[in-house]
């Protein structure tokens, strides 16, 4: 055979495999508003940077006449490439090939690229679009899922793992995304659930559509399973491109620094917080008033909005920001907000990203539903995550820091390296009203005019205790600083903490209250 005919044979095989499930199936995919698996990869990655492997992998199943069926690339595209010059490993399930169903070789292609990502110390991006297990392959298909879950867990905290749900992702398949760090969904395209509408209808008699059960809005607003919501696939890819600029390649590196930029002038930090401590404000405006270019990249924006988490830069360095949100439920901690913050804190700690915490909360949310949902166990997650973290931890107390909420929000006592407080800070065991009602209960009850005495006592308590100076006198606060000094204090704190070392007792792993 001449080289020319060898090349011809190579092009023939390659062009057939690249076509995936064929033109009809591609037409159907596009008619649903979806890109093909290959287009998704090339849209997400830098131009010409994608290098594909295992294009000629074939399945080995012979049951149910499967030996007569050829499934190009076994329904998944794997390879390496770059996003804004940042190297990554990627796979994308191809729904046009047997519905993107997962057989053993399909799974082995995924685990192979995962193993590469681990060896090379590179982030992994998985694009999910699959009908589920390839039933004809039976238990081998289950083996495939299990091998993926095992690697997701081994890679957790070693390389960043990103899941993109661009189609159905149902049954056992949902557990790979669930084990990864960030899950991206797109409106009307993403669908995630353990048991689908049909099973729910037959077993339980409840009727619900796929969208209402596990669509993108449900996963970002109600369940909290997904971290980023987009209206289109293109918007989703832009979000991923932005995310990778904030995170390092792996747990032995730091995120790449960017050229420092001042915050934008329209975020006037002096006028964001209302004088009345009972009035709300949007803590994100305050974060934007402090960070570089007022660019705050929020995560899980639509779920448990009483706490805000996300990435920003200070003097060009990535920081992870956690802030109570007085605008929503007065910024209380509850089951969901504790869960949300704790996982983010652990991500930042694993990937060498310093933590900045902005505190303004009246405490934990009261209620039977909270107690019965296990707010004790869930609330403990945030204490655990902050105490465990050894990255630089800097806390700024803006206004209220009462009781258990004060302790939980990265107080000195949980190992904060620096705790700063604004003059408006109120660091106390509880708010003046509640405290006065308890401490002066008898005096108020016996008074001729209980309301007047109560008001007097509240005023006295406020003057004496609702300030940062008692905590500062005890050394629980390192410095009382003004709003405009805050950026400078934070940048300095992060800068001098670069080589911070904190040794912890040797152990296999801790046992957080999952």
């Amino acid at each position, binding site marked *: 055979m001449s080289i020319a005919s060898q090349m011809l044979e190579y092009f023939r095989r390659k062009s057939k495999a690249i076509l995936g499930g064929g033109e009809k199936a591609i037409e159907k995919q596009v008619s649903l508003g979806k890109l093909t698996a290959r287009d998704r990869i090339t849209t997400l990655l830098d131009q010409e940077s994608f290098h594909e492997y295992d294009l000629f992998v074939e399945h080995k199943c012979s049951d149910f006449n499967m030996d007569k069926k050829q499934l190009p690339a076994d329904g998944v595209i794997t390879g390496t490439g770059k996003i804004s010059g940042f190297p990554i490993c990627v796979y994308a399930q191809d729904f046009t090939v047997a519905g993107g169903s997962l057989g053993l070789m399909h799974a082995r292609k995924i685990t192979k690229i995962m193993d590469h990502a681990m060896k090379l110390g590179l982030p992994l991006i998985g694009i999910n679009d699959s009908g589920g297990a390839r039933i004809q392959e039976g238990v081998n298909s289950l083996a495939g899922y299990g091998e993926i879950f095992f690697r997701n867990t081994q890679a957790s905290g070693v390389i960043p793992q990103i899941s993109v749900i661009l189609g159905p992702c149902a049954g056992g398949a949902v557990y790979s995304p669930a084990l990864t760090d960030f899950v991206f969904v797109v409106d009307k395209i993403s669908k995630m659930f353990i048991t689908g509408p049909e099973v729910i209808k037959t077993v*339980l*008699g409840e009727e619900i559509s796929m969208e209402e059960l596990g669509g993108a809005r449900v996963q970002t607003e109600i369940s909290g399973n997904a971290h980023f919501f987009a209206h289109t696939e293109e918007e989703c890819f832009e979000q991923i491109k932005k995310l990778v600029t904030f995170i390092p390649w792996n747990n032995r590196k730091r995120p790449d620094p960017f050229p420092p930029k001042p915050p934008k002038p329209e975020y006037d930090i002096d006028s964001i917080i209302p004088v009345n401590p009972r009035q709300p404000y949007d803590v994100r405006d305050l974060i934007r008033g402090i960070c570089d270019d007022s660019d705050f990249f929020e995560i899980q924006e639509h779920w*448990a909005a009483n706490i805000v988490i996300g990435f920003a830069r200070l003097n060009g360095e990535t920081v992870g920001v956690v802030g109570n949100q007085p605008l929503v439920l007065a*910024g209380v901690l509850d089951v969901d907000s504790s869960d949300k913050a704790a996982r983010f804190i652990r991500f930042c700690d694993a990937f060498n990203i310093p933590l900045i915490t902005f505190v303004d909360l009246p*405490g934990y949310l*009261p209620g039977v*539903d909270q107690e019965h949902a296990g707010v004790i166990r869930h609330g403990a997650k945030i204490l655990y995550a902050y105490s465990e973290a050894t990255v630089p931890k800097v806390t700024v107390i803006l206004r209220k820091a009462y009781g258990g909420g004060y302790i939980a929000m990265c107080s000195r006592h949980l190992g904060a390296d620096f705790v700063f407080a604004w003059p408006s800070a109120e660091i106390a065991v509880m*708010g003046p009203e509640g405290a006065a009602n308890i401490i002066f209960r008898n005096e108020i009850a016996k008074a001729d005019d209980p309301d007047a005495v109560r008001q007097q006592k509240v005023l006295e308590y406020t003057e004496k205790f609702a300030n940062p100076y008692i905590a500062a006198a005890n050394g629980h606060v390192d410095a009382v600083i003004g709003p405009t000094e805050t950026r400078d204090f934070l940048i300095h704190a992060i800068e001098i903490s670069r080589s911070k070392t904190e040794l912890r007792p040797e152990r296999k792993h801790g046992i957080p209250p999952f």
Partner: protein
Amino acid sequence: MSDEKKTQRLVIDDTPYETRYTRKFEQRKPWQPPDPRRVLAFIPGSIIEINVEPGQRVRWGDSLLILEAMKMKNDVTAAQDSVVKAVHVKKGDKVMKNQLLIEFE
């Protein structure tokens, strides 16, 4: 900057705060103490057998009905000695979780 939306009140430790509610907070159900005179479906499923009728005296442990769910036949029994006041389901009914099945005097 953030959009202007109406705020609501949330009282914590006697202090009312102006803030916004989440959908989950608005939809939370007020807690009610369990009532031993009302037998509710503990799982969604189908009623495949009813063993009591109104006016009937039952003793602790007597079978009231069979609730089939997830391919299991659950024998729902009386938690106390009592008299059946009303049976709210019939054989073959599909019931939701926490649906009222039987009431005692």
